[in-house]
Each structure stands twice: as C-alpha cells, then as structure tokens.
C-alpha cells in the first residue's frame, strides 16, 4: 500500500517474465511472491544466511538483497531451473543420494552455489567447495554430506556418467 510500482522484464529459468512489482521489491520477493517460484527461501532477509541464493548470469547471488530491477537483462536461474530435460541436475541427484538435504530449507541456495562452483571449476578440492559454500548456512547436516554430494556430482559431470537413478 502506498508503494510505487514498476514493471520489470526478467529472464527466469529461460522464461521471459514481465511483472508489476513495488519499487522496493528484491529479486527474492519478486520470485517468491509475484512469480510463484517459492523454491528460493528467505531465512534472514538481509544477506546473512544464503538460503535465497540464485544464479545471476551464472554467479551465485543473494536474491534477498538484490533489487529486482538489477536483475533485468540478466539470466536468472533458481533451484526450479536446475533440472535438465533428461532429469535432475547431478548435484540435485547426489544431494538426494547422499542425504545432503535434511530439513531442506538451505538446500535450494546451496544447490545454486554448488552449481555455480562446478560451472567455473569442474574439479574443485574439498577446500574449494568449503570456500564456495561459505555463504550458505546449513543448520542440520554439519556440511559433511553436502561436500560428499558436491564431490560426487563433480565426478559424475567430469566422467559423463549418466545418473544415479539406478541407485537407491
């Protein structure tokens, strides 16, 4: 109420989305409350926890502190956009296989950070994985199973091994 609105023209997960939003809206608010893409989470609303992380032109970005108009002209990928036509992204599948998601609330942001990492560094060391995920707080796992999942996914992408679907 009382807020001024503006029209934003976004590219989210490959879809062109045009929406009217209050001027002060962040990318996260627009994704969640205007576009219905609720996969990205709000944990702190000030850039502390990383649950809102999305990829903006391939770079892991805190959508809760990014004014939505800054995302215009960029390719935004959220957790909903990670899966491929052939099935889940290897990082998603390995998260599932390795028990890397417990409550799952930090998971969408961590997946985006991990995918962003693997796209620029296909063979990260464990230290590099820790560094890349250090902006994403997880309160459940102690991170160990998340590292295992990212390492396994990196291996799968590198070796081109199809998927883990045959595995329980």
């Amino acid at each position, binding site marked *: 109420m009382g807020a001024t609105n503006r029209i934003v023209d976004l590219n989210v997960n490959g879809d062109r989305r045009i929406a009217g939003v209050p001027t002060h809206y962040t990318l996260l608010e627009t994704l969640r409350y205007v576009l219905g893409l609720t996969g990205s989470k709000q944990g*702190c609303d000030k850039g*502390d926890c990383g*649950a809102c992380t999305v990829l903006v032109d391939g770079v892991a970005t805190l959508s809760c502190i990014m004014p939505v108009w800054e995302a215009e002209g960029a390719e935004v990928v959220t957790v909903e956009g990670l899966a491929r036509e052939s099935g889940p992204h290897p990082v998603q599948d390995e998260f599932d296989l*390795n028990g890397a*998601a417990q*409550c*799952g609330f930090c998971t969408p942001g961590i997946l985006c950070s991990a995918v962003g990492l693997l796209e620029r560094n296909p063979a990260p060391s464990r230290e590099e994985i820790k560094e890349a995920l250090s902006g994403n707080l997880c309160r459940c796992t102690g991170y160990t199973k*998340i590292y295992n999942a990212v390492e396994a996914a990196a291996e799968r992408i590198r070796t081109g091994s199809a998927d883990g679907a045959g595995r329980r």
Partner: protein
Amino acid sequence: MSETGGGGESRPGGTDEQRVPDGRNSQSDLNLIGSRLRKVDGFAKASGKARYADDIALPGMLHARIVRSPHPHARIVSIDSSRAEALDGVRGVVTGRDMPHTYGVIPWTPDEHPLCVDRVRYIGDGVAAVAAVDEDTAIEAAGLIEVEYEELPAYLDPRKALEATGGEDSPYIHEPRKAGWNGNITKKVHLDFGEVHALMEASDVVVEGAYFFEGTTHAPIEPHCAIGLWEPDGREAGGLSSGGGLTFPLEPGMGGQPGKHEGGVPSSHGRLTVWSSTQVPHYLHRELARVLELDPARVRVIQPPVGGAFGGKSEPFDLEFCVAALAMKTGRPVKILYTREEVFYAHRGRHPFHMRYRTGATKDGKLQSVDAQVLLDGGAYASFGLVTTYYSGQLLTAPYTMPAYRFDSVRAYTNKPACGPKRGHGSVQPRFAFEVQLDKLAEKLEMDPVGLRRSNAMGGNTRTVNELRVTSNGFVECLEAVERASGWKERWRRLPFGRGLGVAGSCYISGTNYPVYPNDMPQSAVQIQIDRSGRVAVFSGASEIGQGTDSMVAYVAAEELGVPLDYVRVFAGDTDFTPVDLGAYSSRVTFMLGNACIDAARTLKRKVQDAVAGEWGCKPREVLLAGGWALFAPDTARKLPIREAFQLAEAMFGTLGATGWYNTPKDIHGSYRGGTIGSSPAYSFTAHVAEVDVDVETGFVEVKRIWIAHDCGRALNPVLVEGQMEGSAYMGFAEALMEEQIFKSAEQGREGLHNAPSLLDYRIPTSLDTPELESLIVESLDPEGPYGAKEAGEGPLHPSIPAIANAIHDAVGIRMDALPFSPPRVWRRINEARAEGKLKKPTAPGRPIEEEVHESVS
C-alpha cells in the same frame, strides 16, 4: 531396486507376533532396513518443490505483524490501536484481552498469554497484532499502535532474581503460585540417591569444580511461520471492526474452564485450520482449542515441511494464536512470518546453567559419589522448564555406575526470552561439567581418561542409581570405536604443544515414558491402507522436521509389506488425516512411530499371507513378502507379484486398512516423586574424541576433527543416522566455540536487549568453521526398539563440548570451565596459566615428567 528381492528364505515364523516387544527386532534377513536409501522427500527438497509454510498463499490472505515490548519488564497501562485501525488496508487488530486464557506446553505451568494482557516480561514479548492487506501495511500499522508502559525493575541474572522479595521495589516476574513462594522460581528439584555424604568422605580423591554453560539458541534457517483460516460454516465470521473481544459465540461457562470440554461443546460451528512450522502439531492443536475456546474436533493443524527446528518449534507460539484470532476476527486467511529478529526473541533455547560439581572416586578410579548444584536461568516463561529442571539432574546417571548421587536444581525466571528445549534438552549442560570433572579426576589419578570411563561403564540390563531401566547399551563399543579411530593410544598427551585430543561420553533418552500431559492413550500411531494396485498409503501422525521421519515409516512399511519403496506414499502432519503422535521431541519418533508402523504393517501382512496361503494351499508363515513379490519360502521360484497378492487379500478380506500404535512401558520408572522423568523405553550412548589446535597468542581454538561413535541400536538407514550424528556434533561444536544468546546490561545502554539478533552477529558455523566429522555407527540392537533401533538425533550432541574442553587441556594445559571457548576467554585463561607457569602439555600418566619438557612453551 532388485525385482526379486534378496534373502527372505530363512525368515522365521516369529514375525507373526503382534505387540510383543521382543519380536520386533528378531529379523535377521531385512531387505531394506539397514540399507543406504534415499529419503522419500529427498528430491522434493533438492528441487524446490517442497512447500514450507511461507510458500503457501491462500486467496484473500492478509499479512499480520506483532507489536513487541521495548522493555524487559513493565506493566501495560494502555493500548491504543485506533490510529492503526484507521490506516487504509488494515483489517483487524487483536490484543491480549482478546485471548485471556493462559497456556503452556506443560499443563502444570501455564504462565503465558498469546499476547501479554497486563505485563510484559522481556524485550520482544508480544502485546498486539495487526492484520492488513499486505506485509508493508501491517508493518506500518504495527508502528501506529500506541502502548503505554510503566517500567518495572528487571532481572537479567538468575541469582539476582532469586533475591527478589515481591515488594514494590523488587517485584516478582510472575505471581507466586502459592502464598509465601518466590514468584521468580519456576521449579526446584532436590533428589538424593545413595549415601552421598558418606561415600564422598570415604573417597580417595574428590574433584570439585564450578562451571558455566552460556545459553544458545536453535537458529533454524526457516523462521517460524503460521497461517490461520477460519471457515464460519454459514455463520458470521466476526466483525471487521475491532476493539472488543472475538465475536465467535460460546456456551455459557466455557470461558472459565480451559481444557474442559466435557460439559458440552462450544456452539460455534466454524472450523479453524492453522498451518504452522511446528514440530508438535498435536500440542498446538490442544492449546489452540483450549485458549480460543473451540471444540477440538473443529480445529485442524497442518504441519508443512519444517525448515529446521531442533526443539525451537516444540510448543505453541504467539504467532499461531494470533493468525487464528485474526482470521476469526476478519474472516480472511492470515499469515505471520517471523523476522529473523523475532526468531531470536521466540527462543526456547538452551538454558544458561550455573553448576557446581563434586565428584568422589576410589584411588583406582571407581566413581563413588556425585554431588551437584545447578541454577537454571529460565528467561521469562516456564516453557518446558519444569522438565528441564528435572533433566538437569536425572539424565546424568548413565553410562557410568554411580553408587551415590544428589542434585539440587533451581530454575529462576529472568526478564529475557524464555529458555526451553534445545537438542539434548537439559542434559547437555551437566554433561559438559561432568565429563570435564571426569577428565580432571583421571588426571589427578594419573589414569587414561578413556580407561577411567571404560572401568566405570555400567553395561546393559541394569538400573541406574536413580532407577532408570537401561537395557541395550553399546557405550563401551562407542568408546573403543573413537579410541581406535582417533589413534588415541598413540597420540593422546603425545601431540606437540598446542595440539590436543579430548574424550567424552554420554547417554540420552529415546523418548519419554510419560507424555507431557497425563493420559493413557498411545504416544504414537499410524494408519496404513493398501489397495489392489500395490500402493501402500501410510498416514503418519509424526512430524517430519528434516530428521527423516516420513522416510523411516516408508522403509518400515516397504520392509514389512514387501513392496518397492516407491510404492509407499506417506501422508503426515495433518491432524484431520492422521492419528495422533505427540511430536518430534525428546528423540521419541523412530522408536515409537517405528514400532507403531510395524504394528499396523504386520496386521496387513498377515492378511496378505493368509490370502496367498489360501491360494497356494500352504501355511501363511511360508509366504514371504519381499522386493515386490509374495514368495513361497520353501521354494522361492514360486512367486506372485505383490500387486496380485494384495488383490487376493482384498478379495478375501475386503478393503484393506489397519491402524498400529505404540505406547511406552509405564511400570519401569523410579519409585519416588519425579522418578517418571527421565524414564525412557531405551537409552542411546555416545562417545566422541575431538582434536584441537590452540593458538596461544590469539586464544583461537580450531577444532580439526571430531570422531563420533553412537549406539543407535540399529541404523534403519545409515545415511540418515550419520546425518544426525554429524549434525549433532556440529551443533555441539558450535556451542563450544562460537554461540551465545546474550543480552545487554543497563551499563551497555539498553538492559535486556538481545545482543545480536541476526545470523551475522549471532555466529553460527559456516562451512569454513566446521571441523571434519567422522561418524562411527555402533549397533546394540535394542530389545524393544523397531528392528532394534534407538534414537540418533540428540545423543550425539552431548560429548562434543566436553571432548573439546578436554582436548584444549591436552593441547596447552588449561581448563575451560565456562562456555563458549571464544578467543578472548581462552586467551585470558592462557595468560593466567602462563603467569602461573602452567602453560604446558599436561603430563601423561606413568610417564616421566622430563619427557614433556621439550613439548612445552619456552
């Protein structure tokens, strides 16, 4: 998944037993149980499809905001919401007077109002709530609600709170429950077992220490969120104008009798639905009905996936009452999402404990007598505090034999957010103190602390000094697992100065034998319905909060009914659809829900076996259900797809459904007042070794690695058990080194204000802070657990903290008796030790002191 299913040929006929505890873990040919399996909700969570409370939007939904007290202790003189109500877009306001009944998760201490009525007791206490068409308007309106306060003296230190007299200058935080009592005391417990004084006197060595455990909070990544929906069923939903009480009609006399609906049901025909990020939908259901004076049969609580809880969502909160009341008042759905700051005020986290311990032992290290005094800093409300006060003493009596034990525990109210249950409720703090005491004792006796613990281990099938019944016990195996994995024998006391190893052990409950409100009904239940397609639907009352509850029941149902895992659907967390389970707390779910699910599944399994046996002309027990098939045990080449087996059963018995339930044993508790608290059907055991690096120049402690061995009875899915062990050890590590829920003093400018209500300033570990965590599962096969399983969610937190404290001592010779082991605090201890000439590697037992000299600081 294999189509034929493995094993099965030797399945004993004993699986036909029903509700016989001993039969439940007898299977040696499990197909799924014990395998590394996916979770049933794993992909939903890895794809953004899981819908948490704040992901839900209802048509016409309003957003509300709660107005909170800026004072730690004050009387409410007046509340004027007229300016807020006049704001364009505002649809309703509620205050404490709209909801006059008190509530509390423990029925003996209902000391909270949904919104404060005449007094606020901490900075952040809720006083009013306003609903508007959007969140921005609600925030603006909340700022327009004018509350006039008359400030009262505040108590931040529990020792000061105990000195209050109740007079004008020294008011109690709560009215005393009886005349002459101190209104600042929630609960006092004094329990005494064995000859404490005589055995202490007779001990060859006595160690005495004072310890402080700083409060910490859960900090789930998902903030609390609730949505209320009121369906008036043709009747008026309530006026849009506010100012008076709620407008729903009531039977005469209902108002004064919270919790008593026997005398008739309220005449309101409306139905209330509340979605909440709770871990106790049943208790929320009870309290919503009681406080809002609704017929419980017309209240529905839905628990969506919960984004972390850890005990922090295990009782009702103001937001749930407010969304309900505002929905009833406005006739529109209402949502409240806490800000991160509000999550810190909601709290219910770890109590700060001030502790003193005396521990006596013989010269060969046998424990003789333990004497404890504990002061719990409770915050503004009781929460689970009555139980916490008992737990602060009751849960210390295993895994070591203790001939005599006494504890004096007092919980004081203070003007801070209420403390409550955090993972390892009430027993993490005393465990820290006690395991450091043991380390000091070992040092004094020149013993290896692993050996000292081993020699005092109580073993299985015994009773503790306070009469807890211990059955399965894998503690010694845990101790030996971490001893081996860490290279303890070669490395303890032998690492270079600055690097150290420490050990600690612990024990925890697998649920409580007595529910929080007295009743004789089952603690946990499931309903299973199967049909001719082969599909198995499990309706589970339990609360999935990330620990894997929904998956666990799916594994059990698939195991028992022989279907592939993806034939199982789990429906959970909805009080309209599922039988009652008491909630995700006290590590009760796997034990109780697992047994309930086995119970229901075996009822159906017998029908399927009977039907197939009729078809084949064999004995029912010769029919195996496994891997998607019904198989003839003597010759497994003879088989039917499970779907056809279900069809035979559906033809023979009609539509197939069964309920199953579990209730705890009620005849095994201690024969004294309070003896029921701490009584559990089974106990888990844990041992940790931590390795640390201490920088003596900065006081910075780096935990390199924690080896975690945990006796979970049987790991139903080792992936999930490891996840609980690693998450627990992480959380303990975090409390040891980083976290503190602390408040500003008057001298700091704002008495009682939370010091750091954000995830930046309240420091929880990132990936770069967290040590390597190594899980070592120990399986003792509990006689009453489902397939022998016990808890894994809380026990493995306990030893982290004392293991780290003991490792710091091994590294540089200082004792850390107060949490957290933050650089300033460690640095001060280092400087004190340096001044006393004690900053050096401690002496190893039986080794000449000279050997140590080259390892100490120059």
